[in-house]
C-alpha cells in the first residue's frame, strides 16, 4: 500500500472519529446543561406538537431568518438546500448497491454544486459589502466560507476539468468502511478535495458549525409556553439565597 493511501486512510479515520465523538460530547453537554427558567420567545406554541412544528419550519425553511432578512435568507437557504442535495448525492460512494432514491437525486445533485457555490458567493459578498456584517466578521468567518467554496470548486473541477477514477475512489471508501483497505486514486484535484473535506469534518465540532445541533437545543425555540399550567421545576434549590446573602 502506498504512503499516500495510508495517510488518507488514517486521515479519514481520524476525521470521522473527531467529528462523531466531538459532536456527541457537545450534544451530551447541551442536553445535560440545566435550563433554570422558562424563556421561550413568544408567541410560542402551547403544546409539544406545536413546538415540533415550530422547529420543523425553523430547520427546513429558516423561518426566523426569513422574517429578518430576505437576501441572507435566499443565499443561506439555497446554500444549505444545495449542500443537503450534494451530500445525498455523495452517498453513492458509500453504498453498494447504490440505494434507488440516491440514484434518483443524482441528476438534481449535479446542479446542486452550482447553487451551493452561488449561495456561498452571496453570503461572502455580504461580508464585504454590508458594513454591519463586515464589522462582525472574524477571519474564521471568511475562512469557513472559503473552505466550503474550495470544496465545492474542487468537486466541480473533477466533474468538468480533471475527471478522477470514480470506481477506484468508491473502492477506497468502501474499503475504509469494511476495513478492507484499497489504494486511493492519485489525482491532485481529488486529493485536494478530500483533504479539505477532512478539514471541515475536523473543525465541525469546534466551530460555529455547532449551530446545526445547537438550533435543536435553543430554549427560546424549543420550550412549550405553559408555565402556568405546568410548574417548571427549579434546577437549583433555595439554599443559594442564604449563600448569596453571606458573600
Amino acid at each position: 500500500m502506498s504512503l499516500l493511501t495510508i495517510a488518507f486512510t488514517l486521515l479519514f479515520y481520524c476525521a470521522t472519529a473527531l467529528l462523531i465523538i466531538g459532536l456527541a460530547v457537545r450534544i451530551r453537554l447541551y442536553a445535560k446543561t440545566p435550563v433554570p427558567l422558562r424563556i421561550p420567545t413568544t408567541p410560542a406554541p402551547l403544546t409539544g406538537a406545536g413546538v415540533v412544528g415550530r422547529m420543523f419550519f425553523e430547520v427546513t425553511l429558516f423561518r426566523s431568518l426569513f422574517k429578518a432578512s430576505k437576501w441572507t435568507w435566499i443565499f443561506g437557504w439555497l446554500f444549505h438546500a444545495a449542500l443537503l442535495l450534494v451530500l445525498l448525492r455523495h452517498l453513492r460512494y458509500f453504498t453498494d448497491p447504490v440505494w434507488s432514491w440516491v440514484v434518483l437525486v443524482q441528476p438534481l445533485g449535479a446542479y446542486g454544486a452550482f447553487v451551493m457555490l452561488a449561495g456561498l458567493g452571496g453570503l461572502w459578498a455580504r461580508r464585504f459589502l454590508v458594513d454591519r456584517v463586515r464589522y462582525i466578521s472574524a477571519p474564521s468567518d471568511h475562512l469557513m466560507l472559503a473552505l466550503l467554496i474550495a470544496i465545492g470548486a474542487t468537486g466541480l473541477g473533477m466533474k468538468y476539468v480533471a475527471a478522477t477514477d470514480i470506481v477506484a475512489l468508491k473502492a477506497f471508501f468502501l474499503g475504509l468502511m469494511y476495513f478492507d483497505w484499497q489504494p486511493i486514486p492519485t489525482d491532485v484535484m481529488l486529493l485536494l478535495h478530500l483533504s479539505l473535506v477532512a478539514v471541515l469534518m475536523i473543525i465541525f465540532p469546534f466551530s460555529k458549525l455547532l449551530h446545526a445541533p445547537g438550533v435543536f437545543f435553543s430554549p427560546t425555540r424549543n420550550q412549550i409556553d405553559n408555565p402556568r399550567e405546568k410548574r417548571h421545576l427549579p434546577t437549583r434549590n433555595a439554599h443559594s439565597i442564604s449563600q448569596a446573602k453571606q458573600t
Partner: protein
Amino acid sequence: MADFDTPALKPYPVIPPIEIGVMAHSKPYVAKPEIQQKIGFPGELVDNWQQVAIDKMGELVDNSRALRVFLDSCVKCGACTDKCHYYLGTSDPNNMPVARQDLFRSVYRRHYTLAGKYFPGLVGARELDQEMLDDWYSYFHQCSQCRRCSVYCPYGIDTAEISMAAREIMDTIGIGQKYCNEIIGKAQTIGNNLGLPQPALLDTLEGLEEDIEEETGVTVRLPLDQHGADILLVTPSADFFAEPHVDGLIGYAKVFHQAGLSWTISSHASEAANFGMFIGSYDNMQILAQRIREAALELGVKRIVFGECGHAWRVAYNFLNTLAGPFDFLDPNYPLPQHICEVTYDLLQRNALRMDKSANDDKVLTFHDSCNVARASRMGDFEGGQFVIPRAVIQASCNHFYDMPAHATKEATFCCGGGGGLLTDDLVELRVKGSLPRMEALKQAVDDYGVTHMAAICAICKSQFSKILPYYGFEMDQVVSVHQLVSNAIQLGGEH
C-alpha cells in the same frame, strides 16, 4: 436638555451606517459599596477580578443551556444587526445584538474553547482586560433585554440572556449599576422600589379613594393588607404615584368594584417589578418573588393578579411558579398568576362591566406592545393572546383605535427605550436615542390616523414615554395607561 442631539424622525425606517464608538461614553453610575453589599455582592472591584469573572462565566455557562448554546451557535449571519432600537437610534455597531454578544463571546472563546485558546486572532477571542471591562459596562447597559433580536435570529439567540449574565459577572466582581441595585435593596427590605413604607402607602390609597368619590360620587375602596380578601393585587409601585400610572390603578379598583370582587394590596409585596431579572441574579429575583408568596399566605388570598408592568409580568408569568412555587394553596380554578388585563377581559366577555366608550371620544388611540409582554410571556389561553387581550380591553373602552405599522407592533414591537434597568437619568441620551424607532412608528400613526394618545401596559414604558415624548415634539401626557381608559369608560353606581 442635555448635550446631545435628538435624532430626526424620518418618514420611513432607515438602517444607519455604523459609527464606531459613538456611544462608548454612555455609562450608568456605579453602585456604592453599601448598595452592593446589601444585595450580596462585593462592595468594590475585587483584587483578582479577572479570575473571579472568568470563573463566574464558566459557572453561569455550566448552569444555563441557553448561554451555552447561544455562545456556540452564532454564525455571524448578521440577521439581527438592524433589529435593535439602540443600534437604529445610535449607529454604534456595538449596539448590534451580535456585536454586543461578541463582547461576551470573545472572552468566552478565549477561556473556554479550543479555537480561542490556541488561535485567538483567528476566531476573534479576546482577554477580559480593563478596556474590555469598560466596554462591557457601557454596552451591557445599552441593552434593554427586549428580546427583539431573538425573534429574528435563526437560532433564537437572545441577547438579553447574555446581557443578564454579563451584568451578573460584573456584580460578582464588585462593579454594579447604581440604579438597579439600589432599587433591589429597597424592594427587598421595604417591599417596593420606591421605598414607600406601609403608612405612606395607606395614606396614598386613602387619598385615591377620596379622589374617586369626589369625581364619581361612588365609594370605591383601595384596600391595603386586608386579611381574607380573595385577590392579592401586585402592581408596580409607580402605580401609587406617577402619572399616568396612577390613573391605571384607579381603573383596576373600579373594575374590581363593579365586578364585586374582594381584593387587597399588600404592603409586604407592594411591588410587581423585579429588578433581580435585569441584573441576571437568580438569587435576588427569588428573594423578591418569595415576598409575594409570603404576602399571599399571610393574607390568605385565593388568587394573585398583577397590574400593568411588562417585565414584572414576564417574571410573574414565566418565573414566579418556579422561583416561589408551588402555589397549591391558591384556588386552582384561576391561572396563577393572572394579569389585570385578563381579569378585565374576562369580565367584559361576560358583560359584567358597564362601559361607555364615548367617555374617551376626545382621544384617538394606539397601543404600544411592551417587549416583555409581547415576546416573553402571554395572556389568555391562546397563542398570541398578549396582543389580542389588551387591544380588546382598549377597544371596549374607546371608539377610535388604530395600530402602529406592523414592523413596530406585536412580536416586532420596539422597546420604549427605557427597559431592562436603564430608566435612569444618567442614561437619558441612550433613552432618547433608543426610542427613535418607536417615535417614528408613533409619528406615522399620528400622520395617518390622527392618533392623539398611545396606551401602554408597563410602568417603565409609561415613565419612559412621559420623559422622552417632549424630545420628539410630542406632549408628555400623550401616553396613557390601558386601565386609565377603562377607568374613564366604566359607568359606576347602581351595582350590587
